[in-house]
């Protein structure tokens, strides 16, 4: 039976509907950029670029207010670096064990634990940081502030272990078995195979997992909103209360900054910075992961 014009039109309509759904994702990106840009532009009418990017004080509620983003960026970086210091060694070690050492049965036992860890809502991690890790730190170092970067960073690091572990493991699993066998044939131990053959061969995928985890840490919100404090401060001391970019956004959004006020607009300026940092990290990370996948 020949296809009628009606059938053809139907097919065409469906294809157009599907294409619209797919292009929605592009629209979302455009929406994010446009909605951030509008208010950010308004913010920069009142605050100079120079003050925003080179100022070292963030105090929107004081008069005169200061809008130098450095303390918020520094707070974010402090927490992120602590988180990376926890998650990189543990995540990488976990990936090496899973890909090079673990017998099949044990793998099937360990993987679900990591999956559960990855599925726990961040609000629960925030609760854990504030009510368990912070008191534990204060028991050891009594002058620690109730809100501090260390507690938030440690818990965030634990949250990131599954991400680094599973992405790195994927990269290591993609290393051809023949490379390992060649090394074993030369008398290498498993440890030597791991760090002389597998890790160098999988290094780009491993680095990508670090980059993506870093980006995730920069954008993480609930843990820092609960545990890291709300005092924007240029400090390297992890025991002090700080504020991250995400923490500031939450603080203003929970308050009642009127729409159109400079405080309200400052949220968009901070969110724009956050967006561009995470977007560039993700672009690099995803690019490496995908290029890497195609090689083997």
């Amino acid at each position: 039976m020949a296809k009628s014009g009606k059938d053809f039109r139907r097919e065409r309509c469906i294809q157009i509907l599907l294409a619209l759904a797919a292009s929605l994702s592009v629209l979302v990106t455009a929406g994010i950029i446009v909605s951030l840009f509008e208010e950010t532009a308004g913010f920069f009418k009142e605050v100079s670029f120079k003050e925003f990017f080179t100022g070292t004080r963030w105090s929107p509620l004081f008069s005169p207010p200061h809008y130098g983003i450095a303390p918020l960026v520094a707070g974010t970086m402090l927490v992120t670096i602590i988180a990376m210091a926890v998650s990189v060694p543990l995540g990488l070690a976990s990936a090496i064990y899973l890909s090079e050492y673990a017998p099949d049965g044990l793998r099937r036992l360990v993987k679900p634990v990591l999956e559960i860890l990855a599925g726990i809502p961040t609000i629960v991690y925030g609760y854990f940081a504030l009510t368990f890790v912070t008191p534990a730190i204060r028991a050891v170092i009594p002058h620690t502030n109730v809100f501090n970067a260390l507690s938030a960073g440690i818990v965030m690091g634990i949250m990131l272990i599954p991400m680094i572990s599973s992405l790195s493991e994927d990269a290591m699993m993609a290393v051809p078995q023949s490379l390992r066998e060649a090394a074993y044939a030369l008398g290498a131990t498993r440890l030597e195979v791991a760090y002389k053959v597998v890790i160098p061969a999988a290094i780009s995928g491993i680095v990508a997992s670090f980059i993506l985890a870093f980006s995730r840490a920069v954008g993480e919100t609930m843990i820092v909103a609960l545990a890291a404090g709300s005092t924007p401060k240029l400090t390297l001391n992890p025991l002090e209360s700080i504020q991250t970019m995400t923490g500031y956004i939450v603080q203003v959004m929970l308050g009642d900054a009127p729409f159109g006020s400079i405080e309200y607009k400052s949220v968009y300026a901070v969110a724009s910075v956050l967006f561009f940092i995470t977007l560039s990290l993700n672009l690099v990370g995803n690019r490496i992961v995908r290029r890497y996948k195609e090689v083997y």
Partner: protein
Amino acid sequence: MSPQEESFFPNLEGRKRLDLIFKWIFFSANLVGLLVLLVLAVKIVLDSWGWLDVQFITSFPSRFPEKAGILPAIYGTVYLMIITALFAIPTGIAAAIFLEEYAKKSKFLSLIQINIYNLAGIPSIVYGILGLTVFVRWLNLGRSLLAGGLTMGLLVLPVVIVTAQEAIRAVPESLRHAAYALGATKWQTVRYVVLPSALPGMLTGIILALSRAIGETAPLIPIGALTFIRTIPKSPLDSFTVLPIQIYNWTSRPQDDFRAIAAAGIVVLLAVLICMNSAAIFLRNKYQGRTKEL
């Protein structure tokens, strides 16, 4: 002996010992995760002990922790998930079908694909600001369930698309060829052959996406989910609260009793998540390899 042979010290014993030591180091890295999970579980159960009862489930929030409950939060969470699912599932699957079955390989297509991967990595608080700007203000939906649900829908959309794409990709090409050979059109092939066969995989992804949405707090803060509401939302345009927001509010108060009911809320939230994830694993195991038998 040549110099090279002289400098060759196999030192087998030492290297094997080192290998063994590192094997245990690598192994214990995995124990850290397990340990944290156990401590977390014990801590939350102990904190919430005695607070989680029928009264807690069926009451409204209150200034007095012993009278406070999560009824509006439960309704809010359920309604929010319905809106999120109604929006994200059809859109996500349609996008995945287009990308896998219709779109020709091109620069533009790979741009869309890269865009989707990157959308998945944008901080959820930024989605909240997008929702505030577009849904609450531009479309004038107010701080409503609908605005929250659509925001959450956009947030999980990349997850739904990517998992649906993987499920479609796993459908053997031979099935499509068989349908075409019988004279089916493209859409008929997709509708009656590809979709049924990819459905279990898609379902797993959908459940995982929704369980991510249930636990998300940050995107709803800019939307303005309230924490102190005395009514259950009746329409999609009503204000609302959800479990994670309620937990956040109680946790951020200094009193121990509020922390205790926050812990009780966490127990409820985790119980829901465990049910959803078990369902996903059950589906995955039940349908695994079904296509191969065809």
